[in-house]
């Protein structure tokens, strides 16, 4: 499959120019209130949605920005939004 991503700076590019940066989980919760379990939920656990998810990508071979997109994991296609 030929996966493409629309980079906010560079436009539509081949997926291989980018690095996947994980599901979007929001900023790291404050350390003081963290238990090991909640830390682990944030750091290691994934929703693994078979469907549309919001996620981070890095334009490694291009402009070097991190950004989020929505992607349908069942088709591996970027989609407009949820």
């Amino acid at each position, binding site marked *: *499959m*030929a*996966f*493409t991503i629309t980079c906010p700076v560079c436009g539509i590019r081949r997926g291989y120019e980018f*690095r996947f*940066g994980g599901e979007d989980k*929001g*900023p*790291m919760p*404050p*350390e*003081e209130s*963290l238990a*090991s379990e909640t*830390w682990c939920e944030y*750091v290691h656990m994934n929703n693994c949605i078979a469907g549309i998810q919001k996620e*981070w990508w*890095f334009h*490694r071979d291009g402009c*070097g*920005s*991190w950004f989020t997109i929505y992607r349908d994991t069942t*088709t*591996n*296609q970027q989609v407009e939004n949820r």
Partner: protein
Amino acid sequence: MKRLNQLPTFRIQYGKELSVNFGQKRCRGLEGDTIASALYANDVRIFGRSLKYHRPRGLYSLDGECSNTMMAVDGIPNVRAENTPAVDGMNIKAQNVFGKTPDFDMMRFMDELSWAMPAGFYYQTLHKPSRIWPLAIKHIRKAAGLGILSPDFHMRGKFDESYISTDVCVIGGGPAGMCAALSAADQGLRVVLLENRPWLGGYFEYRPREYQKGVPLYQRARELAESVGHTPNIRTFKNTAMIGSYHNNLITAFQRGNKSDIFTERYLEIRAGSVVVATGCIERPLLFENNERPGVMQIGCAHRLARNWGLLPGKRAAFSVGHDLGLEAAIDLADLGLDIACVADIRQDSYDSNLAAELEKRNIPFLPGWVAIRAHGSKTVNAVTLSSINATRRRKLSCDTVVASAGMTPVTGPVILPGGKLTYDNHTGFFLPATIPPQMHVAGRLLGLDDPFAIETSGLLAGLKAAADCGKPVENNLKEMAKNQATLPGPTRGTKLVTGPVKGKETFICFDEDCTLKNINQAMHRGFDVPELIKRFTSAGTGPGQGGIPGHNLPMYVAETGESPDRNPKPTTVRPPLVPVYLATYAGSNHDMSKRTPMHDSQVKAGGKMERIGVWNRARRFSSDTSARKEIENVRNNVGLLDGSTLGKFRIFGSDALKALQRVYVSDMSKVAEGKVKYSAMCNEDGCLMDDGIVVKIDENDYYMTASTGRAGQTIEWIRYHTRYDGWNFHMVNLTDAYGVINMAGPNARKVLEKVTDADVSNEAFPFAGYREFLIQNMPVRAMRLGFVGELSYELHVLSSYMQSIWDLLEITGKEFGIQKFGLEAQNILRMEKGHVIIGSESEQRTTIHDLGLGFLWYRNKPEAKTVGAFALKDTEHQKGRLKLVGFKMKESGTRVPKDGSPLVDSRIRGYVCTARYSWALKEPIGMALVDDDLCGEGTTLNIYEDGCKGKLLSAKVVSMPFYDPDGKQMRC
């Protein structure tokens, strides 16, 4: 055999002769011949032997759906003779033959044993008793496989690649494809047209049938090809097989080079705004007993043999067909001189009555409602038995050729691969695209069209649709064209018959895997009731031709037998590549991109043994002595020079630069002072060591930092990732390649430096851990005093363009002080003597900085920064049961150095040696190991198990680190 007189459809050139060697036989051919046509002209009928039963196999389709004509050509196995041009002097061999020629194969008795090999027989036999299985494997391996590839085979030729962007990509250079290309190009778009054959024209190209008054189809094909050739915005790729199609209109293909091309084969990746699939049809094989005996061939094969290559397929032919093309071919071949015994047609009616009349005019018996049920002849066909479909009547006719074809089957791979779905269409009997991926259109014969005008119009229409995808305002043209199309004949009603009244024991549904109807029945009896599973169980459709032969018939047959829970025929999966492709072609240019430091050439010249370290090439050592003793001792005694240019170097600045540093480094980066270097580490969320390096404050909110060689490529990405929610104002510049790094280390280092700079580099003016900027001659240098190798050392960061010159200057200047180059191996031992860690060598993915004894770097009182890894560092600070890094020496003197990677054992594995070397400074072996934390106390015995030691363990004891100069006097002096 004699060729026909010149025809306008010929692809051969009389007068231009060539010859190829077929085994011992020398075969004469003509320019334009394929290997198969050249051999056929020399009366070769058996091209090879089948996989399992060693049945003779011959020319069948000319389109490459089966492995019948796969031969070894000049040492390359599995070359399809039927579409490979003959080249003068080629050496050709038949495959899977045990004997001198494929006419006599010593394994032909296998055919008589087919009863012993029911579908899936491997699974159900050969394991009882269990000792026979290993023996069976040997025989299975020997019998399996077709071609022979020598382990030292060298593929000749040039293979490269091209990445093409276009607006419209048209797959198939037949009439529909050409029309689509022309209509899209007419809109001013960039068009790419792909055609597998060496010429355009497809289904029209060889046929003399009238297109318009006075214009035969082949002439029309040439007219269209000429228009295409004259259209500058159409790039036509002939000899180009489309092999893959993917989401977002990525099409892959490969082109076979002509004599004038610089490439043998070229891999193509085409990204198009819109795709038109006009791949047409291949023929659906007719299934009957011995339906693959040499002499049995499809309509197009027989017809094109005569029309393109001037070869009549035989002397006397019987036809058993299910499509008007068969009738047309019979008429034309009869006119060209072939004796036609009869034409049986599956169809009772719905054939073209004009064609039937033409047959009658030529006294050719026409038998509607009849079908072939058996070909006779042990090596090649000598007769055929025909039967009425209802099995009430039979006839046996002698003939040397059976032209057999059940109908047509569309080539839909390009639509299915990117996610198109097929459904069975009752009118055409085809699996037709029900859903087509976005920006993809289909045209021509694959829709079931046969009328020339309808085909061309469908192409024009698809071209306009593609133009619309590319944003062209073509609504009106589209409407008009659709109106035109509606006035023309639609899809032809297709035949559905898979097989006449046959038993099926010798009826081959898949040639490549020698799979018969009987085998399919056996699989269904075992409970494999969907085509996809039957395919797996019987191997049908998994051979070199993939689904080409059984792809249509298998699901039809399964649905017909009623064994399947689902009565709707379901096509089996199609997978890329749609045409088999050399690995050489896929590999293409295979550019190897790696990085060289500014010192590369001179390091190589000096005898540097270069190694690939990540993306870089680096010198491991400068002599054949793997211990690098001289280099090491010279650093300890005099002074050495190391090329450290691969070190990552970055500028980070802006009002929030410090915040970013606080986030990613574990230390308190607010303590970075001007004129000083600060060493720190980066961890991941698990507190594990990811990188270490130094940070220097150049100015307010302006820092210079280093990263290890392996991490430099990801440093900016990492820092931006961990600040991505913050919106902080800071900027980074990757200066890794801008500066070369010279590590000048050894007791004489200062003496050398003093001579090349006017700056005060005394220990007082430039102490350990200091950072200075000064000039060497006129050149600015960033200098740091670091202690990685444990001696007085200066790390000089110089502009890359100057590096070679400055290095040369240091070498010339340092000559009197014994200066010499050193490489990575020497550095590895020198740093180990100091107990310094190399990431990946002394650490694993799960090793925290606590485990490495680097916990002191962590500053815990900056929670506002959310230091990456801080939580885990807190959690693991006193955690038990972790692997910790320790230093060790051998218990008894004289013990040799244990090998890197050797485990430490008692009743179980307790850790392993990370690095161990003989220390020339300490005159004994030393090492670093990761061990269970209960073993890390000084003096603890470590038992080292070496690969192949047969239980004889080496004994070591834990000692404190650093091994060399524990007080650090050498590097601070």
